[in-house]
């Protein structure tokens, strides 16, 4: 409609006769495209190397696969036949299910998938791995047309009559599953529905809480230790503060493994600190490492620079005259600090706290090396599931839970403090 220049007398026109609004839009669009083109390489890099792989990994937490095939594609006949069967009946499935299994199992055997199927089901019900492995060749020799396949299966291994095994297969008939997430919350499917696991098998809830709890303690420790250092750095003349800043950064340039091992040597029972303790006349050696205390000490040290640097850069921007003004107006040192200086440093505390906390939650190597029995983090279990057990689905589910929890904490932080109130400098 704006096209109709002659009739729209009130519209401002650009030099070339088009309406000004449109011309402006066009110019801005060109500018936006140019800006987009400039960040395109980075955007593409992040998409390809970060968003896409992480998304794919997170998807694994719900995909019901063996290798790259979905379970219902590997056991198409079994899945259909099992629909009729009810595990609660207390009886093993009917002959038709065994016939379907004979057909699907042979095909899986040819594709080298039968042992993988066994491993996959074994995540949920121990014992199925060896059942599938043992049954490999014998099942392929069965004649799917014969009338008594159920007997033949039971002859290969009587475990083929176990109701809980068949229930596990039935529970995994879909292309997608919530079983990994159930496991991530220490729950499992039983014949009577979804239940929490036995107390002697519940680990992830405790580990999640411990990871968050210890990370919070570590964040508070870095704050308590880092705040005075940052203030000192911000207050000193540039020449001295630069030198001190280098001392803060120095550990940054040392390998993480070296720093962790150094703590082991310092803190162990026959270590330097305990030797001094004994030399001072104390009787008992202290347990400072291979427990939660060791994790807190080592990680506080390692993460300290991430707290000091944002604090320092924020404090640097606070003019010293503010404190002097407060005092000249009659405030005591404490009041001046609490009411004038401290509030101005909260953006730095927010930034440093978030940075340290989020880094700590995902820490792996330090808790593994100095954590002992009660100082491991959930990331250590994710590594186990990923590497030793090969249960990528559960690893992905645990990772997703961690991601969601951290995002939730970020959201709460935003509501309480406001993310705008975070400054890195």
């Amino acid at each position: 409609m704006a096209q109709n220049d002659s009739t729209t007398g009130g519209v401002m026109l650009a030099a070339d006769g088009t309406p000004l609004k449109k011309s402006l839009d066009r110019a801005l669009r060109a500018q936006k495209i140019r800006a987009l083109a400039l960040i395109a390489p980075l955007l593409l890099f992040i998409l390809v190397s970060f968003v896409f792989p992480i998304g794919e990994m997170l998807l694994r937490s719900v995909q019901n696969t063996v290798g790259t095939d979905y379970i219902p594609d590997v056991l198409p006949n079994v899945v259909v036949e099992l629909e009729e069967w009810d595990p609660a009946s207390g009886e093993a499935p009917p002959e038709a299910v065994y016939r379907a299994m004979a057909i699907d199992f042979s095909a899986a055997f040819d594709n080298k998938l039968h042992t993988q199927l066994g491993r996959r089901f074994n995540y949920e019900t121990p014992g199925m791995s060896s059942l599938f492995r043992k049954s490999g060749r014998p099942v392929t020799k069965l004649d799917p047309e014969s009338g008594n396949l159920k007997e033949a299966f039971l002859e290969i291994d009587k475990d083929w009559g176990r109701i809980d095994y068949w229930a596990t297969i039935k529970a995994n008939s879909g292309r997608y599953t919530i079983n990994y997430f159930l496991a991530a919350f220490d729950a499992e499917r039983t014949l009577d529905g979804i239940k929490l696991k036995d107390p002697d098998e519940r680990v992830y809830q405790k580990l999640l809480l411990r990871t968050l709890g210890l990370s919070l303690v570590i964040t508070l420790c870095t704050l308590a230790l880092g705040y005075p250092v940052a203030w000192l750095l911000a207050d000193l003349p540039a020449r001295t503060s630069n030198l001190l800043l280098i001392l803060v950064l120095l550990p940054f340039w040392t390998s993480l493994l070296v720093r962790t091992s150094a703590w082991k040597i310092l803190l162990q029972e026959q270590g330097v600190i305990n030797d001094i303790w004994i030399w001072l006349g104390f009787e008992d050696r202290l347990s400072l490492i291979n427990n939660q205390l060791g994790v807190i000490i080592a990680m506080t040290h390692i993460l300290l620079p991430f707290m000091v640097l944002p604090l320092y850069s924020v404090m640097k921007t606070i003019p010293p005259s503010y404190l002097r003004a407060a005092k000249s107006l009659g405030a005591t040192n404490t009041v001046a600090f609490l009411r004038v200086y401290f509030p101005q440093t909260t953006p730095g505390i927010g930034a440093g706290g978030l940075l340290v906390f989020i880094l700590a939650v995902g820490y792996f190597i330090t808790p593994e090396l100095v954590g002992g029995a009660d100082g491991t983090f959930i990331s250590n279990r994710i590594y186990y599931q990923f590497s030793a057990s090969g249960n990528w689905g559960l690893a992905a589910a645990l990772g997703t839970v961690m991601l969601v929890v951290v995002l939730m904490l970020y959201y709460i932080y935003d509501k309480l403090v406001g993310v705008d109130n975070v400054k890195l400098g």
Partner: protein
Amino acid sequence: MKLVKTLLATSAMTVAAGAAFAEGHGNMANEMTIVSWGGAYQMSQTKAYFEPYSAMNEGLTILTDESSGDAVTKLRAMSEAGNVTWDLVDAVASDAMRLCDEGLAMEIDHDAMLAPAPDGTPASEDFGDMIVSDCFIPQIVYSTTFGYRTDLLPSKPESVCAIFDTDAYPGKRSLEKRPIGNLEWALICDGVSIDDVYSTLETEEGVARAFAKLDTIKADTIWWSAGAETPQLLADGEAVLGSTYNGRLFSAIAEQGQPIGMLWDWQMLDLDGWIIPAGLPEDRLARVMDFVYYATDSQRLADQAKYISYGPARQSSAPLVGQHAELGIDMAPHMPLDPANSVNTFLFNYEWWANYRDDMDAKFQAWLLQ
């Protein structure tokens, strides 16, 4: 499906490659990436296999990687990405079985592809029971066993049950932070015969019994996750008794002269060997086959024992084991399978642990958290 096709293609190629190296030629790649464990172990392979083989083959570059600990995960990822860059991978038997199951490792015809023993015994007989998987080329027998401080204990421990006897052997113990091995030792020392250990662990009471036994030393235990930790803890006097791989203890005792003794009682034996990733291109496969034929013959396996105290997996290699390359001591008495050392042993039960590892691990972790 794709996997199967490549696998069939590989098998066909393997036969061809086998024939090719038998005639002493072939279109072989000039670069080979071998993956192993790093440290003293990989060094022993470099000395015994890689260096002599390179000397025989001018222009060949052997690249090495130290990722065997993540062999399964990494190979699976490479295979899914369709770009397998490894040519030969050193793997423990349980990993080899898993890789074989998943079609990620190539199946081996041991007699056709490997050298016979000097007396003509075919390779499959010479390796015997060590061939635990169709894809596995056995290399060494190693064990997880105990070392103790000779100067910090009141008496010399003779039985593995010393780990549970904190009265007679006070001090910290170091145990691996996983259920494998620890549960077996707990039950053996609680009076269960080795033949009944696994059937006992399949019952809830059995598991409870094993953990009850471990409870008695929980407060005295340091848990390790890297094999180098126990020798370090023993050397520092941080622990007085601890489990680790026998080669690590040998190196602490013989090469570094630490006051540590070997406790071979109820050592847990395990195997380590080569696997070849499935689906290698023809020239790379030909090179690997040529190398493997050389590196797993009786003499070469015996040569590796000059550098590290792991036993060769061939029967015919045992008499060829000589002296340590630098220290000049006889290596035979330091081998896990030496008759004096192997009075009580058990083999890592791959099948049982494949079934119950996740289950036991969850229980073990929950127990640690208590």
